[in-house]
């Protein structure tokens, strides 16, 4: 299709280079495969059972949804610290609208999604138009949300009574849990929009070089705002499913997602395309995080081991992709 330069017989020095390039691109996938094989060999019965594999996917689902949304913000070259509290916020709001206001399920879900969109717009306006640094802006909205969460819930979990809401996260279609279906749908849409639509192309351009994107006629502000709204909506979907799964809305519900979502997205950035955030990569990152948790739990490891493993794997993956990029370098003369 295009002109390529074919390398002559590779000298020895080139072999190391190639190996490095290979590990930089596929290292994260190799880690994932090694984990599956490792746990599979150690505990074939428990780990490789169909039930457990579906269970792993089910445990991954909520993290994958929120990490997918976060990926948009990262692709746009921004940062979001507010999604954890958006998760709690939309859970509390959804349960509150059901229990306290007695609204029907679709209205309650719609209401909490709309509220999340408003938060996303606020983030976007602060960052894209008022030019406040994303970390500061989203830290501020996050703190405001935390306040609202305490205000609305009085600090105590709002528990669900009888009703069909808990069936959403606990139910299944054709043996596949609904959160897994939701995850597949959300990730498919996110991938499609990021890779096959104007918004997605413009998001990537904005994140790569904002000044150049602006001079190419890309509406940088609007695109950035859209990224924050997408992240907020994904966080809200996650929050609603989470409250449905645990049967209540809690102020601390989303806290655990903050670090794991970042870990997954950064792990994903070293999958195949080194240093660039992308949806499939994030999904691989989510799987690594979830499988590590699941496998270590089956092995009977204590919870601190999971944190050690998660931190070290993240470091290793990012270090590998950064080092390889430096060694392989920009090929210019």
């Amino acid at each position, binding site marked *: 299709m295009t002109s390529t330069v074919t390398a002559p017989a590779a000298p020895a020095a080139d072999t190391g280079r190639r190996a490095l390039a290979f590990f930089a691109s596929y290292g994260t996938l190799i880690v994932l495969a090694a984990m599956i094989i490792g746990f599979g060999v150690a505990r074939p019965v428990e780990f490789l059972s169909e039930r457990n594999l579906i269970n792993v996917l089910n445990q991954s689902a909520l993290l994958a949804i929120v990490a997918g949304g976060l990926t948009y913000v990262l692709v746009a070259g921004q940062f979001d610290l507010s999604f954890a509290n958006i998760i709690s916020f939309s859970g509390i709001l959804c349960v509150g609208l059901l229990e306290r206001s007695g609204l029907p399920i679709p209205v309650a879900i719609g209401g909490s999604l709309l509220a999340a969109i408003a938060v996303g717009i606020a983030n976007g306006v602060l960052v894209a138009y008022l030019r406040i640094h994303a970390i500061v802006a989203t830290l501020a909205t996050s703190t405001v949300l935390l306040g609202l969460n305490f205000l609305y819930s009085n600090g105590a979990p709002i528990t669900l009574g009888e009703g069909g809401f808990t069936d959403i996260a606990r139910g299944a279609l054709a043996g596949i849990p609904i959160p897994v279906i939701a995850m597949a749908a959300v990730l498919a849409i996110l991938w499609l929009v990021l890779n096959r*639509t*104007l918004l997605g192309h*413009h998001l990537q351009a904005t994140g790569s*070089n904002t*000044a150049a994107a602006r001079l190419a006629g890309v509406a940088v502000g609007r695109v950035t705002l859209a990224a924050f709204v997408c992240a907020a909506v994904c966080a809200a979907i996650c929050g609603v499913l989470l409250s449905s799964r645990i049967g209540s809305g809690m102020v601390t519900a989303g806290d655990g997602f903050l670090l794991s979502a970042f870990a997954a997205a950064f792990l994903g950035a070293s999958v195949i395309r080194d240093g*660039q955030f992308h949806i499939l990569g994030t999904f691989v990152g989510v799987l690594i995080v979830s499988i590590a948790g699941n496998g270590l739990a089956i092995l009977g490891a204590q919870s601190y081991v999971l944190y050690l493993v998660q931190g070290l794997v993240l470091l290793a993956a990012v270090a590998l992709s950064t080092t390889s990029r430096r060694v392989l370098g920009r090929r210019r*003369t």
Partner: protein
Amino acid sequence: MSATELVSGGPRRPVSASAFVEVQALTKTYGAIRALKGVDITFRRGEVHGLVGANGAGKSTLVRSLAGLEQPDSGSIRIDGVETHVPNPSAATRLGLAFIHQELNLVETFTASQNIMLGSHEGAALAFRRVDGVHPAARTAAERLGIDFRLDRPVARLTVHQKWLVSIARALVHDCQLIAMDEPTASLDANESARLLKVARDLASHDVAVLFISHRLDEVLELCDRVTAFRDGGVSATLQRPELTRQRLVEAIVGHESAPSRPARRDSGEDRPVVLEVSDVRRGRALTGATLQLREGELLGIAGLVGSGRTELARAIFGADRIDSGAMRLFGRPYAPTSVADAIRHGVALVSEERRAEGLFLDLSVTSNLYVNTWHKRRTRCTPFTSARRAERQAAEIAQELGVVLRQGGVRQPIAGLSGGNQQKVLLGRWLQTEPAVLLLDEPTRGVDIGAREEIYRRIRSLTRTGMSVIVISSEFEELLECDRVVVMSAGSTVGELTGASITVNDMLRLCYL
């Protein structure tokens, strides 16, 4: 040894053209590309040594090897006769080699004095340092360079020319005996360039080995004692003073004698309709009254020194900056672009002079770079989705048509892997996709070799034949001889116009200094 001692001024060694750095049989290979094929070169103290050559000819790789940014595959580097290995940039500094690039490595918020002293190892790491005032060593270095601006101001407030002097002063404080300058005059006007060349001359007369890398042959001819020309990863010629002529340099760079090309056609085209009319456009202090007309199918040059408002005028026409007063008309209708997107819709395109900062998405693919603002034309019919396969196929065709040399990966590879000339072709291709009626090219050949330069002008010519109106801004007035008409700008306003046979470099310069 204190820093003050190091820059005490005056030659530290007896003036002699002694060899300082000797490079022998240096080779460097990137994958399938042989960037250096056994290069021999010697840099002497007290000599200004020019390095010329097309992009990718190997001069940058040589410099990067000396700077410790690349490790050569084989060959030797001797400094004062001692075989040396340069593992990293700080080792290069310790060896007395300073490399100053276009992207000056200065801390913008630090003062000039702090920047000059940065990295000089006097005292313990945690010893208190003065953060105000001017360090005596910095002052000495500044005096040696004839610096006449204040050293206690942040570097962010300095001009590019002044920043170069700060960088050179830093090299002096580090007692560097070889100072390499990579395209130092690229963004300087004629006056500033002349002053910088004088500084280079003075450095050499104080027994420093000066390395001058430039595409501007006039300056190379004026300044250098010895010039090494690179071609295809090797040295194609080393010329000394008496034998140093433009003809021989071009011959060594290009490989064949290229006759100075003069435009075949230079009709004033006064019968053709006016496409763009700019009347007395003003913006702040940068634009103080610009007036010009652009006709259909015309190639209009804008000449002017850096800071004359050329780029600002282009940005105003392109809607990147709002104007304070004045009026523009496009195809006879009032034209006041509210944004870049608005200008693009009106058929105006601008290829910026800052290729890396304002043009390229370095980590994205060639395809993405090409289509960033025309993805809407690659949608599958009746859907909001773009077709990846079709986009890539078409991108490959466009790249081929533009003469882009793609390496491994084709149009999927990140554009960072292409050479400067090829990147520029892709950017030109991007804007041609928007089907502009008015194409603005700001310094389209900056950092581009002679071969690619001629190719770019050939393409511009063929575009004007299709009726496109093109404005070219260039600091190299010789290039503007290609134009049908040249408007000269000075201090923010248009000061004159040259047509047909009256377009000469002298006249352009004369108007600039009116």
